[in-house]
């Protein structure tokens, strides 16, 4: 059981700076996801924590011990790789046992521990097989098992679910999270999948171009994105963004319509509103706008509706069990769910709201 501390981490490949001043504190038993698009440096950070990659400057602390100069083997961590990296020439039993064999653990203890771990992960029927004879989900489980064999100080996951099909991915997501909570192991989890990050993490670190955009609990990130990047990266379908003018009391949409609001930042701003927060109805009310529907996507659990307010495109998520208004639809924006971003760097403006 341990904490991980990353202090002022910088990484350059030649002249190219991929990570500039990254600091993060992962508390004991915490599950933190590093979330970002490919090439944002999230895997590099993980590999630096593991000791597989050198850092340019900064410090890594695991379990209150500075491990920066140490080799991976001396860091007391376990890692699950995207391609699982199971040893193809070894049986499942030997894959699990390898870490303990290196440490010259007595054969009986190894056997006992393999028994425990394989039962925990329901792979005890597969111990004599080789990785090539396993399905993707089974390989994933063996990789997990290998990681927990030694009861390491911390788990590192590098996109462990991205090679699985969608159904299995959902299943393994739950399994990994349950296992992590049961064992209480500090975890750093790299993913580009927002659903994985949202559903599994205690906290999410959203990364872009090697810098932190936002750190927060999943709902904080969803409800109060710190920047345009976070706002559009999290949530599906993604947040509607409308560039408009505001005088603090009313918003003037590109269509010319005016929306009265209690409080808004003034000047030229970008308004963000999530498709599932927009109210759609067949009757006009005080603050609603006429909405022309152009396409309806049926998802079963909900409908995704594409349409326009004037010339402004607007996506609305609509519950499946409510019939769509037959003619003449109107949308309204509940004030508590409006996000404002500046037009320059895209920083969130309504921090207090």
């Amino acid at each position, binding site marked *: 059981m341990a904490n991980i501390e990353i202090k002022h981490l910088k990484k350059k490949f030649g002249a190219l700076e991929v990570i500039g001043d990254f600091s993060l504190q992962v508390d004991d038993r915490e599950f933190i996801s590093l979330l970002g698009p490919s090439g944002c440096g999230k895997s590099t950070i993980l590999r630096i924590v593991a000791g597989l990659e050198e850092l340019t400057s900064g410090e890594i602390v695991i379990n209150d011990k500075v491990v920066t100069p140490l080799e991976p083997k001396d860091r007391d961590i376990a890692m699950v790789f995207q391609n699982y*990296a199971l040893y193809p020439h070894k049986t499942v039993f030997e894959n699990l046992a390898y870490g303990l064999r290196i440490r010259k653990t007595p054969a009986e203890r190894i056997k006992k521990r393999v028994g425990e771990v394989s039962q925990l992960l329901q792979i005890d029927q597969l111990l004599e097989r080789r990785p090539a004879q396993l399905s993707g989900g089974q390989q994933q489980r063996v990789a997990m098992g290998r990681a927990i064999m030694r009861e390491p100080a911390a788990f590192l996951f590098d996109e462990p679910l991205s090679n699985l099909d969608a159904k299995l991915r959902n299943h393994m997501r739950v399994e990994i999270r349950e296992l992590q909570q049961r064992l209480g192991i500090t975890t750093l989890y790299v993913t580009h999948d927002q659903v994985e990050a949202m559903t599994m993490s205690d906290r999410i670190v959203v990364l872009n171009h090697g810098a932190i955009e936002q750190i927060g609990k999943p709902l904080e990130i969803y409800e109060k994105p710190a920047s345009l990047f976070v706002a559009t990266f999290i949530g599906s379908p993604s947040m509607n963004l409308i560039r408009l003018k505001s005088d603090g009391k009313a918003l003037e949409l590109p269509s010319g319509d005016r929306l009265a609001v209690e409080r808004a930042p003034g000047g030229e701003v970008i308004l963000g509103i999530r498709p599932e927060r927009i109210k759609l109805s067949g009757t006009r009310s005080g603050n609603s706008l006429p909405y022309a529907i152009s396409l309806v996507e049926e998802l079963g659990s909900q409908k995704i509706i594409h349409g326009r307010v004037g010339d402004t495109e607007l996506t609305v998520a609509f519950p499946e069990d409510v019939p769509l208004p037959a003619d003449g639809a109107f949308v309204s924006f509940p004030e508590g769910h409006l996000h404002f971003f500046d037009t320059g760097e895209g920083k969130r403006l309504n921090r207090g709201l």
Partner: protein
Amino acid sequence: MAPKSRAYWIACYAILAVYGVFTLLPIAYLIVSSFKTQQQIYDGVASTFWFTPTLDSYRFIFETKPILQMLTNTAIVSVGSTLFSLVFGTIAAYGLARYKFRGRDDLAFYILSIRMFPPIVAALPIFMIFNSLDLLDSKIGLIIAYTSFNLPFVVWMMTGFIKSVPVQLEEAAMVDGQSQLGAIRDILIPVLRPSILAVGIFCIIFSWNEFLFALILTKSQAKTLPVAIPEFITWTEVGWNYVAAAGMVLVAPVLVFSFLAQRYMVRGMSMGAIKD
């Protein structure tokens, strides 16, 4: 794919049959000639495969020349140079496959290009160098020479093989608690074993059959069998039956070996063609 017609298969097998005869006939001719007397060799086409076999040629070559010693030399030099080539070649290949450094691809191509110029170009310099190092007519000298010819091939092939093994396997071993060298020993080498075997087989066959450098660099002590074979053609007689018998002695081990090692050789030749 649509089923092929009968004519297609007849044509296929006809072509294969012609090719089979084309490649096997010389070997068949070698075999029968080794069991003939010198007279029978010239007896005409009709009796090529119809004659009274005799072991006289074999008896003669073993009596007049140290065939066994030369065969042993051939074996020692082949195995020795193959081992050296594999060890050093694989180490070099690991560097080329796993590390990025300036000029890596140029270096890899340069190593391969050594293989491209005719060996005779290097013969004279090597002779002079070996002469001053007192390596002429020694098995060590021949092993060094063959190693230098096999190395580019080993480096090139092994680089490809190592690249095809995900580096995460070694990284997983390192996270599991192993050093980098330990990870190579425990994980990479065992995974590569079939590839190493395949490359080794090609090295052994090259060294076993090599003629040119054995001719130039050896005299008596380290002489290998390929060099001895043409010596049965002298200014007084052309002993085709002796040449054939000595050829058989040289070829037989390779035939047996190739037959046993067939599946590894196919793997070596079809490298990268299929995904595991």
